[in-house]
């Protein structure tokens, strides 16, 4: 849901070996930040990064990222009819779309999208946790849900405020929550394999969990390479994020299909 916003913008905004600066911000004026005007950023993109994006240009990447809009529009059209238990996922599609739009606007003006992206990761983790709860994942262990509900914001604060700043991209938090989401999705899929009927491919939770497993597994691995080794090799990370962009497109289309197949609310019969 957010790969596009992370990939290209992440790459543009993160410290480059030659410049070795923090992400450029125009308005926040944080001490120690080096200001880059939008033009400079665009020049930087043209001169230094275009060779690495020979196969995938900025527009295509942005278009892939915005594919979440398909799901968001379907969610908006069907909101009154879809069952309440999918509410967190609907909010997640709109939040994802807002994040993509904010990222594109910020980066095209030469600002970093780190702060919005970091906030989005927190919202995403909590919304998916809530969605798992609505699907009954924590029915047997409600305390574990409360524990995760406290742990996720706490770990986010630790990285975004204590270890780094809000204006630097989080990595450890992404690894942590992506890993948790993959676990939750795998468990939900296992339960569906045994308890649901044969037409699993038409079950929205099955599709959504498949999307979670595909996207967040790749995201976890990408972040690990980012933290421990990828940062030094531009070619490698560009290739990795290219793949992530395609995965993002695929997963967004799966989400859109799931949103189309979400069951409608049961009509209540008014009692006289």
């Amino acid at each position, binding site marked *: 849901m957010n790969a596009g916003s992370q990939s290209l913008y992440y790459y543009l905004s993160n410290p480059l070996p030659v410049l070795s600066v923090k992400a450029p911000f125009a308005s926040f004026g944080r001490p120690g930040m080096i200001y880059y005007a939008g033009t400079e950023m665009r020049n930087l993109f043209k001169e230094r990064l275009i060779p690495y994006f020979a196969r995938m240009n900025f527009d295509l990447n942005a278009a892939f990222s915005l594919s979440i809009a398909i799901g968001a529009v379907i969610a908006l059209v069907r909101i009154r009819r879809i069952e309440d238990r999918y509410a967190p996922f609907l909010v997640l599609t709109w939040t994802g779309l807002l994040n993509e739009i904010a990222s594109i606007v910020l980066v095209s003006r030469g600002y970093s999208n780190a702060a919005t992206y970091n906030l989005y990761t927190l919202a995403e983790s909590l919304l998916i946790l809530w969605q798992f709860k609505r699907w009954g994942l924590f029915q047997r262990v409600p305390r574990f849900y409360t524990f995760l509900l406290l742990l996720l914001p706490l770990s986010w604060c630790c990285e975004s405020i204590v270890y780094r700043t809000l204006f630097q991209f989080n990595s450890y938090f992404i*690894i942590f929550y992506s*890993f948790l989401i*993959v*676990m939750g999705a*795998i*468990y939900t899929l*296992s*339960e569906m*394999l*045994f*308890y649901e009927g044969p037409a699993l491919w038409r079950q929205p939770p099955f599709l959504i969990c498949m999307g979670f497993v595909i996207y967040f*597994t790749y995201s*976890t*691995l990408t972040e*690990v*390479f980012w*933290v*421990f*080794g*990828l940062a*030094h090799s531009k070619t490698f990370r560009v290739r990795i994020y290219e793949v992530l962009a395609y995965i993002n497109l695929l997963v967004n289309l799966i989400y859109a299909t799931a949103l189309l197949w979400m069951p409608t609310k049961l009509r209540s019969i008014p009692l006289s």
Partner: protein
Amino acid sequence: MDAYETSIYTAVLIASLLLGAIILFSGWAMVRVQKRYYTREQEHLLARIELLEEERLRIAEDLHDELGPMLGMSRLLLQKAERTPLVGQVEAAIETVANRLGGIARNLQPEQLLERGLDTALRHFFDLCREAHPMSFLLHYGIERELPPETSLQVYRMVQEVTHNAIKHSGGQQLEVCLQTAEGNLYLTCRDDGAGMGTGKGLGKRSLEHRAKLLGGQLRLQTTRGAGTTYQFILPL
């Protein structure tokens, strides 16, 4: 090895560990959910079989308490009637119905099993079978200890089902039933010399499997066209 290489190796190691953890978790989740699923299925099965036994008991009581006295009353009324050949025939028919009713009631509620145990109940059951069918029924009862009532009832029902299958479908001349204990298990082996059967899962076969699973055991079925069928139940004690 320079710092860059070290960091790449660290990244590969951590990524592999995470991937390994995800794969292990998938396996664990599948096993856990599968166990829970089978436990729930077994509970449902137990509830269904208990319901079935209760229903059998109720039907047996209804037959005994309601139809029995009515047939008795009819017989008394006929005794007061003028003796004609027709009355004699009706009396004989009522006698047959009363006997048949008693047989059905005993079959539904195995009194012998409840009062005298599995060995006696099975022998009594085979005596009744011999009266009704020319097939030869052999029973080898090699259990010395007393079985729990639930196990006895299930074993009795299994033997009933297998016997019913043998009489109805096998076309054989002999059914041999052997019960013995070994290594903490109860082995129930039933072998007929009939025509054998297909590999499909009929209702009777499924019911036998369910009953075996209910006792935490399993059913092994060996059948060849023209060479009979062998059922072996391995039930933990």
